[in-house]
């Protein structure tokens, strides 16, 4: 009951603790390096430039919309992978993770080949509806969703496979259709997995660079997200790049920490 006895039972074996601390240091030290390198004296003036805010706002909007799209398409896909009785499900599951393995730039080229002005689908979009995705904010969202969706799908699929399908059977015997069962029984039971997946997805979308610049190009206010701005700043003024990185870092940490806290505590 006392603090002491609790800490005794909770003590980690050294063989776990040492690599754990090493791992933590490995993740954190580069961030500390970034902070140490930051030009603190000129930071405020650089921070309040219009370009920074434009890029930051664009990043946040695009990452959020991309995450919503991933939720909308990714949860059903995860459900199909976990519950659907498909032939070649293993192969399908491997294919879903392709965007993770693909160098993002290649992913961007692939998107151009399909959704570009002369792409398989893109040419029809252009001819019939006058829609052209490259070089637009919508294009940024498409690129980010493409790269980030596997994180959501894998996370949600894992949660679905861990969830007990007999609860769905119980719902069915109570007269619930599969859709109602999914909404009122399955989804609430996998909520932690969905939140974890959405967080990963959002973070990946926020940091997305290669596919975005390849598919959507780079134009301030329209497609220049923070990572693109960081990359170009690195060409001329590394200090600006550091400032932009820190801004992106802080905003994402604040958003993720507060969201996670709220979501997960609400579920407990």
């Amino acid at each position, binding site marked *: 009951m006392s603090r002491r006895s609790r800490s005794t039972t909770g003590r980690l074996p050294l063989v776990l603790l040492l690599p754990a601390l090493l791992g933590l240091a490995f993740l954190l030290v580069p961030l500390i390096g970034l902070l140490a390198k930051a030009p603190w004296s000129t930071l405020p003036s650089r921070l309040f430039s219009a370009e920074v805010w434009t890029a930051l706002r664009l990043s946040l909007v695009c990452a959020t919309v991309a995450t919503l799209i991933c939720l909308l398409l990714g949860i059903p896909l995860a459900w199909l992978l976990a519950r659907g009785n498909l032939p070649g499900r293993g192969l399908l599951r491997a294919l879903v993770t392709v965007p993770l393995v693909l160098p993002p730039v290649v992913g961007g080229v692939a998107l151009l080949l399909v959704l570009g002005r002369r792409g398989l689908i893109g040419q029809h979009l252009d001819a019939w509806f006058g829609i052209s995705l490259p070089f637009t904010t919508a294009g940024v969202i498409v690129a980010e969703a493409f790269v980030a969706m596997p994180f959501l799908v894998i996370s949600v699929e894992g949660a679905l496979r861990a969830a*007990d399908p*007999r*609860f769905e*059977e*119980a*719902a*069915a*015997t*109570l*007269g*619930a*259709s*599969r859709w*109602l069962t999914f909404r*009122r*029984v399955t989804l*609430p*039971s996998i*909520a932690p997995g969905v939140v974890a997946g959405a967080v990963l997805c959002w973070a990946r979308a926020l940091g997305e660079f290669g596919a975005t610049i390849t598919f959507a190009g780079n134009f301030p206010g329209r497609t220049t997200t923070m990572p693109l701005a960081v990359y170009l700043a690195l060409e001329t003024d590394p200090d600006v790049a550091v400032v932009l990185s820190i801004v992106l870092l802080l905003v994402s940490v604040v958003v993720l920490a507060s969201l996670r806290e709220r979501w997960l505590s609400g579920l407990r």
Partner: protein
Amino acid sequence: MTLYADLQVTRGTFELDIDLTIAPGEVVALLGPNGAGKTTALRAIAGLLPLNAGRISLDDDRWDEPPKTFRTPDRRPIGVVFQDYLLFDHLSCLENVAFGLRARGIDKHLARTEAARWLETVGLAEYGRRRPRSLSGGQAQRVALARALATSPDVLLLDEPLAALDASTTLHVRAELGQHLQRFTGRTLLVTHDPLDAMVLADRLVIIEAGRIVQDGAPAEIARRPRTEYVAQLVGLNLYRGTATGTRVALSDGGTITLAEPADGPVHVAFPPIAVSLYPEPPSGSPRNTWPATVTGIEQHAHTVRLTLDAAPSGPSTLLADITPAALADLHPTPGQLLHATLKATEVTSYPT
């Protein structure tokens, strides 16, 4: 409206092939050892498992008739209480009970009122806002029952409804369940491996082994005249098959038993373990059955000790005998010990197979 179920399901090497009918108001217990196919039968009726052949119908209303007809569970008027209840933990008890009503399109307010009434019926009126996780086993079982009954199903399916409870609550919950089942006007199928549950709760027992019905009848009838070793053990009887010639029955596994009344041809012979007496020395009196028997097992029960003996070759190779603590003190039986078993012919029942 009677439920007809001609259930034929094949899963791997296992084959279920049984016929069930349940009349309105009737409680039928499906009793059998593990792996006999009880739960498979229940799942088939619930629609959680499609039939390979056969038919399930409620009078003319067909639920499953391969290859054409299959109604999914949500479109069958059923209520199911699962072995571990499967209450939805993200919903309150009230919402759990209201779930089926809401799923069937009943308006939220009405569904909640009705659910509250059901919770009251099972004696949990004040637990509506609690989460299922915070309930005791007995309470959870009652919520599960309320949830299954709330939609006024035509068929109620209970899968080992008392198995997850500890011994002290089982007695009470079983009695309560009995009362609810008596009031229920639909058809009830109770799946259980516990003969006591079946005897107390059911109007009729259907006993299955390895996917086939081995015996079917009223509890008292089955208790008196078991037809398989499993059933006999369930009701606590020694049961053997043999061929009768007058008062002498040659057992099919070897040994003989003497009857009080003569019989002829293939028969079952049965007697309770308490009818067997044991002695350290060959007894001097004249009971009609006396066999040297080796102790093979000793089991402590509530008020008696049950011994398993091997009386071959003169008697049955598996013989159950119940002895009192006083006799236990006299005999000090140990496995492998040679005793002498006696059985009065008047204690032995025989009936044709």
